[in-house]
């Protein structure tokens, strides 16, 4: 047990730190703390990721032959920490980096890896995740989009919803039913779909925060080449599980560092905001809640360290990732609640020129309501923890 950096890790950290100091765009307001970057920052964030890639900082734990750095997951974690500590912008291609890429690395052919991975890292091609449908959210295997083989191409029809970043994506990981007679988990195939294919319509959906970061997508007779599938026909469910493990594990890892940054900001807010004439930080009930949040966020950090050990051995995140995502999302909501309470009456405003912190905290607060829904609702994650981690009987 040693929580300090090894000499190599320390050198690595120093290198990142210096690079970030020199490269974080000056106009970045460092208030971004959410999973999906808001729509108005897309161009800036795309440039940022390109710069990260040029610096060799995208895909740190990905194999070198596909443009990654071939470094360890610990080094990836150090990178995440430094990015969070310096409040650097997030990479735009979160779904490519956190989900599509790792799934292609796990299940893709050599050609597919060559074709897709480097462009994910450079953000030349942004990815989205077309899993959820109007009738298939938590019960993802109930999806009804179909793909039928017609000569050398598949013809896809169906509707997807809540597709983050679809409006700026070039590619989509897409699940469709290829055998309608098989049991529901058995007839699904995993597609890599070119978003410029004719027949795809993307309609933005506005979120509670007011920005349109996700979309609905309509696929009408969309023709994609026969080789656009990942893995085998009708084996898509198993592959989708890899994606979801990475969504909750790999991505969750990076997010937990953001929770620390947010909490430190919140402590700052409590010190600087007056409540009944005194700094809110002096109010015992606020101190208790800040301390509780510290305990949660610290637990999250340390649980992740512990999980890293297993992750390092297996190369795959375990179902414990569901635990992290669960704690993270609920902590972020408590954090948002407390922030708005500390703001006092200004917590009723959505934006306020007199105090720009209102804008940031209100965004974090409202955005956090989605955290317990996206990437597996808290109820579904509790099911997973109960059934796969604890071995309790399946519900129903």
């Amino acid at each position, binding site marked *: 047990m040693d929580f300090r950096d090894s000499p190599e890790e320390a050198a690595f950290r120093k290198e990142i730190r210096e690079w970030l100091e020199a490269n974080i765009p000056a106009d970045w307001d460092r208030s971004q703390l959410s999973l999906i970057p808001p729509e108005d920052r897309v161009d800036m964030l795309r440039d940022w990721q390109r710069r990260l890639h040029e610096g060799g900082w995208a895909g740190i734990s990905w194999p070198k032959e596909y443009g990654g750095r071939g470094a360890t997951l610990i080094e990836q974690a150090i990178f995440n920490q430094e990015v969070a500590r310096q409040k650097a912008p997030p990479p735009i291609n979160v779904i490519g980096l956190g989900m599509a890429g790792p799934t292609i690395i796990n299940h893709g052919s050599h050609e597919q890896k060559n074709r897709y991975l480097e462009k994910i890292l450079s953000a030349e091609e942004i990815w989205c995740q077309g899993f959820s449908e109007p009738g298939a959210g938590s019960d993802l295997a109930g999806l009804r989009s179909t793909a039928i083989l017609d000569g050398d191409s598949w013809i896809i029809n169906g509707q997807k919803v809540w597709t983050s970043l679809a409006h700026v994506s070039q590619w989509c990981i897409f699940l469709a039913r290829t055998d309608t007679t098989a049991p529901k988990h058995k007839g699904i195939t995993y597609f890599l779909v070119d978003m410029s294919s004719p027949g795809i319509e993307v309609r933005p959906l506005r979120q509670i925060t007011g920005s349109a970061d996700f979309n609905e997508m309509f696929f009408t007779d969309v023709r994609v080449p026969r080789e656009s599938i990942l893995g085998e026909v009708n084996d898509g469910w198993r592959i989708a599980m890899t994606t979801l493990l990475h969504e909750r594990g790999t991505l969750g890892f990076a997010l937990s560092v953001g929770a620390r940054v947010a909490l430190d900001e919140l402590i700052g807010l409590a010190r600087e905001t007056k409540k009944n004439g005194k700094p809110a930080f002096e109010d015992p009930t606020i101190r208790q809640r800040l301390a509780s949040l510290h305990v949660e966020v*610290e*637990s999250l950090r*340390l649980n992740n360290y512990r999980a890293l050990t297993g992750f390092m051995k297996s190369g795959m995140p375990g179902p414990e990732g569901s635990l992290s995502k669960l704690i993270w999302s609920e902590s972020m909501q408590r954090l948002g609640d407390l922030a708005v309470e500390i703001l006092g009456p200004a917590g009723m405003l959505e934006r306020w020129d007199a105090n720009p912190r209102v804008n940031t905290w209100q965004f974090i607060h409202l955005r956090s309501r989605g955290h317990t829904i996206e990437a597996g609702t808290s109820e579904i994650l509790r099911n997973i*923890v109960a059934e796969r981690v*604890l071995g309790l009987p399946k519900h129903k």
Partner: protein
Amino acid sequence: MDFGFTEEQEALRKSAREFLTDRSTTGLVRDLMASKTGFDEKLWKEMADLGWMGTAIAEEDGGLGLSLIELAILVEEMGRALLPSPFYSSVGLAAPVIAATADGALRKTLLGGIASGELRATVAIPEEEGRWDAAGIKAKATPVDGGYKLSGTKVFVPDAHLADEIVVVARTGKTKDPREGISLFLVPTSDRKVKVKTLDTIDRTRRLALVKIGGVEVPVDRRLGPEGGAWPLLERALDHSATVLAAEATGLATKVLELSRDYAKERTQFDKPIGAFQAISHRIADMLVLTENARSTTYYAAWAIEEGVPDAALAAATAKVAASEAARVVSQGGMQVHGGIGFTWEHDMHLYYRRAKWVEMFLGDPSIWRERVASLFA
């Protein structure tokens, strides 16, 4: 960065689990609950022979010179097994206080004695007001020729009836800052002017006592640490002690979680195992979250204290909050999952719950430790 245990540490855990599973049964716990002193001399000796009391005591002080991490591993296993023993009061509480304050020959005698199991000690902090902070210390030590005269009433002193020595926290000077003017004295329970009365304690295997000190004369060489300046040293030692409690709470929570999980698989109602109902399975999932939080924060605290890193005190406070709340909430959940049977005297659930409650409140309830967390924010 490495959050793993060494092979030796894993082996220590394994042998501790085997020993405690065999020896610290709930049958023994129940016998000791009903006994006069709650103490099993034979078991104490066996643990002493294993060297357990000396785990985290330095070699030059007569211990094994391992670290707080090894001690936490042992104590976690003790928590699982509900070990009835003054191990915590002597090894987890008195030893770090003595290690932080005593020197010379006395240090060797005390720590060597604790390490070998031949001497048992405890620490007396709160008084009738029930405060754990410096302002609550009213017991008085007045200088007399060659030493001090000590008077006061201490309450909630763990295992005082089993201890040879009590470290008494007293006031030697009146100052504006209550943290100043505090000194520690080593008082033998054999002194006729020390009266120990055990209290009806929620965990009957870990009795708290009322200790009346009526003008005991303490020679100057039995003062531990500087006169008037002992509070900061005590506070640091209590970080260590709180981490030991957190380890015990972690073990306890883990055991209750396992019992509840197993029961939820076996117990059938409405033609299904109750674990198939989300009201139960989600509750158990939350119990797992708390238990994992307890484990992670506890071992980090043990490491941080051992290495003396800057956030050690914050880490200890964090662990105390996380683990003691986990033990309480998990054992409450465990009781609920068990239904009527978990509410009975015969079922073991209340034994865990009683211990959890003791561990949660000792050294200060979670609100006190959360306040400490907040006071340590950068």
